[in-house]
């Protein structure tokens, strides 16, 4: 595995998905995967398939909603969008993430 490219840190894929849906709105799985790749740029190594297990879990928690739509290739696909609970969850996840990074940063600052 190359050193520049990194896998998504554990637990952040949920945040990336929720945040993407919050910014863009309703989209299907492929578009979502592309969006995450684009925003993260070359630094991210994402297996696009890995968003689906994450999506099903977020759906089960009630944070995202699915509707059926038609893809650009004329196929029936699921479109994902954020629910009201999901919108709140974005804020929670961001706060958690900032707390965690701040903690790690302080820890690293103190020991270096």
């Amino acid at each position, binding site marked *: 595995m190359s050193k520049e490219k990194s896998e998504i840190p554990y637990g952040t894929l949920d945040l990336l998905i929720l945040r993407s849906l919050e910014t863009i709105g309703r989209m299907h799985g*492929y578009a979502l995967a592309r969006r995450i790749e684009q925003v993260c740029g070359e630094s991210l190594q994402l*297996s696009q398939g890995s968003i689906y*297990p994450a999506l*099903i879990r977020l*759906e089960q928690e009630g944070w995202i909603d699915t509707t059926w739509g038609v893809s650009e290739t004329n196929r029936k*696909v699921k479109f994902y969008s954020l629910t009201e609970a999901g919108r709140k969850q974005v804020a929670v996840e961001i706060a958690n993430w900032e707390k965690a990074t701040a903690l790690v940063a302080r820890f690293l600052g103190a020991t270096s």
Partner: protein
Amino acid sequence: MTVHGLVARLVALVRKRQFEEELDGEIAAHLELAERDALASGLSPEQARIAARKQFGGIESMKEQHRDRRSFPWLENAWRDVCYGVAGLRRDPGFTAVVVGVLALGVGANVAMFGLLDAVMLKPLPFGNPDRIVRIWEAPRPGVTNSTTAPDFLDWRQMATTFEALTAESPISMALTGAGDPVRLDGRAVTADYFRVFDVGVQLGRTFQPRDLEPGHEAVIVLSHATWESVFGADRGIVNRKILLDGEPHEVIGVLRPGAFDRSEEARFWRPLVIQPGQYKRGVHWLMVHGRLRPNLTPLQARDEMRRIAASLRDVTPSHKHTWLVEVEPLQKLLLGDNLRQSMYLMFGAVVLVLLIACANIANLLLAKGAARRKEMVIRTALGASRSRLGAQLLTETLVLAALGGAAGLALASFLVSAAAPFLAEMVPYTTTLALDYRALAFAGVIVSLVGVLIGGLPAMQISAANIGSSLQQASRGSSGGKHSLRRFIVVAEVALSLVLVCGASLLFRSLLNLRAVETGVRIENVVTMSVNLPLQTYRTPAAAATFFESLRERVRAVPGVSQAALSTHLPLRWVGNGEAIEVAGQPAPINVRFKRVDAGYMDAFGIPLLKGRGIAESDRHGSPRVMVINEALAARLADAAGIRNPVGMTVGLYCPVYGERRTTTEQVEIVGVIRNERVAAPGAPHPPIVYVPLSQVPIDGVKLIVRSDIDSAAVIAGVREALGSVDSHLPLGDIATMREVRERTLAGASRPAWLIGVFAGFAALLAAIGLYGVISQTVNQRRREMGIRMALGARASDVVGHVLGDALQLVLIGLVVGASGAFALTRFAKSLLFGVSPLDPVAFVIACGAMVSIGIVACLIPASRAARLDPAMTLREEG
């Protein structure tokens, strides 16, 4: 995980196919879109497809992750195994039905028995902090208990420090009139602290306060919840209303909460107990005392204090009581009784044996099935199924069986409990409510898990023990004649365990027969008994009561169908609770006797023969010279103690209770006759000395009415009720029972456990028969070839049958030897419940062994006859 997530996951569990299809659709769409983008960026179609795949990552591992995420994978696996197990069981419904049935018998009997044990012994009594409630007795001798006197109770209450409260009570019986037919209510006259001691709350109104016990304020009553419902129709407006008891208005001040006392026939209402000045006598024992211990004090500490108090009262205590002690007994222990406790343990032991036998049976069936499926298992193993996977599947199958059997057993248990509750009501204390609850459910869960563990491992063990290579070879040959020592061992164990139970049951039944054959000394056929109580306010003088009894008997005799009528204070076969004493000239101490009032018809009605002198006559009326009749036991006592050979004609001083008061006077009474003993104590106990005095000469306010008739008892009772109404329309008839029922009640403590254990033994023997049948018929099946050869070589059908039976009897006999030694060791635990039978009674053992051998033969007849009908040519061809 949020609730939302949990629900969604459970949904995903059952809608698996839909999720899979949707996911496949999404993956296809995703790859299509990715391919399109890749094509647009200038790649060749082939390259574009590869690129799209590469970007997507591993599809199968993603799907696996998807499944894990969206649901509970372990649950899904288990569910799959369960479905597989259920499918397997449905393929073989006969096997499933037998196993579930056998298990249901075992579990059902156990859960029902646990329900009984729990209700009787484990659950706390329905009072607040029931372990602190104790009964306080006087004890003339160790092991003999007696009620106490009013002054002693008052002294105890004042001096004792180990109790939070002490209360005295005395039984009362009053007639409720004013609404339809008069109703007789049995109740308790109690001191103010009664409900503090028993800690029972009210649903309506209040309980007693000290001012209710002041003279003139005692016309107030508290009702039990059951009485409120059955007699007053659960009328919420009853509180503060006045009702007529014995013709006097009484105000209802409270109704108890449901539960406590609701099954008690003797305590249906409570009234304040006011001790009259004339009742302060240290010789008259009429109060039952209960106390509530202070927290953290033991009954033993209380007993020691009570004995110190009794010693300090020595100077004021009559001299014949100087050797008396005080006993303090926990209420729970008192209600339960040693006999009932013993019976409970015994019955529970019996039912556990049944469960063990059921397990052995199921193990046997599973082993047989395992043997039949050996080929399948071997092939699956050869095809690469791991042993652990096969084992897990077989285990699940057994667990499914256990769960099904458990559910069926629970249903059976609830049926058994509701069916047996009326049958057992006589046997258990009034505080016990028989019903299955969550505790029984939990117990069922524990049992089913235990059974699952016990039998679940067996088929799995068989797999791992199977040597695949040799099994395959054996399987291909059709497995002629395996040893199956494990199955034979199980059958031997079943026979042995059953024998233990059957021995116990036959001992108990022999004891029951002895009890039934006990000489009761009375004829009880076609006798109905009732009780009548007189209000003292209406019948103020002994003469009034005597007149009433005389006219009542006249009227009852005239009722059509009545051949004999009699009055008595105590029924035959019931203990004479009234104890007095006689003073015989020249004897240093009075002789304690039981005191029973009867009228002139009593001896005739029950056919009690006269041995000497005369019986009670119609001419022994109120005011005529006082006479009494004594029983053989008293005559023997007089002969022993005073050397009196012929007591007839002598006059002794007899302590006679004074009508309507709690005191006695000593009267000079002539002994006019001796009668044969009638049974009043438990079978096996010695006859106590009894004096019989004419009811008219020492009247009392409550009697039993005894009627012998030659027509249907319901018609007689209606006639008697009318006759009573014509004498006094305010008086109700109470305690209606035939003498057979009275006798049943006396024997209930001994007969109920015997019947239950008999039923369990029947279960056990049936199960053992099923097990034996299974093993023998399998052996016959496996040895068809051998038998075919034998028959081809000239063996007759009878030889084959003899061979099969001999094989079976060998198992039964080994079982009997083992079982008999077990029974020898175990039946002594039933000793206290046996009457007239030794725990090692050879007759009972022989009967039990005979029964098991016959059961064994019956179980083998079908497989044996099948073996005899074998066609040698067929069997040889089919196995060749």
